[in-house]
């Protein structure tokens, strides 16, 4: 067990509402974890805390990584694409590569991987799906020890979904995916947890995720 991130009694509230509570979780160095759960269950909050963008209200979150800045091991594909609308996709990647002290040489190949090559227009002209591809490209560029993906398949066409799946498989380190599209995400993962009202209600192998999902919705009367 060599965890890349460990959460203990983790909690986060917004005003009087606990978005995440009593959360204990360990993500192993080579693990692929799927987080499923209904809207508002705290998946995004948890991912943002793991990405250091939100401080916890309670409990602890620890990242391995030589005691350095945890940001150096993290890559995020979040809800907001994290881009500059005025720049082209290539310029966006180059800017952040430079700021993070990374080599800019592989920008063209990354763009080809996500299907955005050969475009020089500003990102403001992109569709929603194209923006998410660029967000994925940002993640791929960081080659993180801990990749966090929040709804990576959202707004993607089937080609995009296939591309995202391929890219996720190729990621080097630990991967945490929060997704509603269980049937796309589960084959990419080894383990899964189900969150409900900020807490973990179920944990098991990724293959059982779909069954857990159905069980939850049966319980809620959605199915």
């Amino acid at each position, binding site marked *: 067990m060599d965890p890349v991130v460990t959460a203990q009694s983790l909690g986060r509230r917004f005003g009087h509402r606990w978005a995440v509570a009593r959360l204990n979780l360990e993500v192993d160095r080579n693990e692929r974890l799927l987080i499923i759960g209904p809207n508002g269950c705290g998946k995004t909050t948890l991912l943002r805390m793991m990405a250091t963008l939100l401080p916890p209200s309670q409990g602890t979150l620890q990242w391995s990584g030589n005691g350095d800045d945890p*940001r150096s091991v993290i890559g*995020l594909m*979040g809800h907001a*694409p*994290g881009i500059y609308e*005025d720049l082209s996709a290539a310029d966006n990647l180059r*800017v952040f590569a*430079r*700021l993070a002290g990374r080599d800019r040489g592989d920008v063209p190949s990354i763009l080809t991987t996500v299907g955005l090559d050969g475009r020089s227009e500003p990102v403001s002209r992109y569709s929603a799906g194209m923006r998410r591809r660029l967000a994925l490209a*940002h993640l791929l560029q960081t080659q993180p020890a801990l990749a966090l993906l929040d709804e990576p398949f959202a707004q993607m066409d089937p080609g995009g979904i296939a591309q995202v799946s391929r890219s996720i498989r190729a990621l080097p380190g630990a991967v945490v995916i929060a997704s509603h599209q269980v049937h796309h995400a589960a084959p990419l993962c080894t383990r899964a947890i189900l969150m409900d009202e900020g807490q973990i209600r179920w944990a098991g192998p990724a293959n059982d995720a779909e069954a857990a999902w159905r069980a939850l919705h049966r319980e809620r009367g959605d199915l």
Partner: protein
Amino acid sequence: MTAVLQILWKDALIEWTARSRTVSLLSFAYTILLLFAFAVGADADTLRRHAGAYMWMSILLCSTLLLERTMRIEFEAGAIERLLLTPVPPAALFYGKALSNSVQLWVVGAFTIPLVVVICDVSFVEHALWLLAAVALGGAGLAAPGTLYSAMTARLAGRQLLLPLMLFPLIVPVLVAAVKTTSLVILGDPMDQAGSWLVLLACFNLVYWSLCGVLFGRVVDA
């Protein structure tokens, strides 16, 4: 330090790529000056005496538009969050951004000079250096607190009103000193006062460039 330059380069790239916006801003500066001239009427003497005031009001009004816009691009698609995930320290984010804003305000300032010469019939040839110093220090003096406050108000619904409202009291010293120096350059400076006004501008810049840099980290984390 390199981080500051990298942020500056990033902003330069963005502003260059979207340079049509700068053209709009310069047109706005020109329009303000014309409006002042129309409002004052064909009174050459008044125009001459208050040319400094018209010039700096034009720069000031451009600055609120500029400051709001340069910060909005960081927040509109979440770029600021990606920036916070890089090793760049928040203070470097501030200084890079504030420098970029300063440069753009210098461009606006430089652009208004020939316009003021024509519209108000003044000459800057003597003591041109003083004028350039006033533009440099005045622009920087607007940019430092402006960058901090634009970050503070970026996520608020009332930002378009709140930003100028909060900024206005801060920049009064800049406005006063810059207008004074400019007017002395235009109208003559028999008692050599321009230097002391520039000293005031320099002190203001010193205080605000340091204070705002320190506070910026807390503002973006919030």
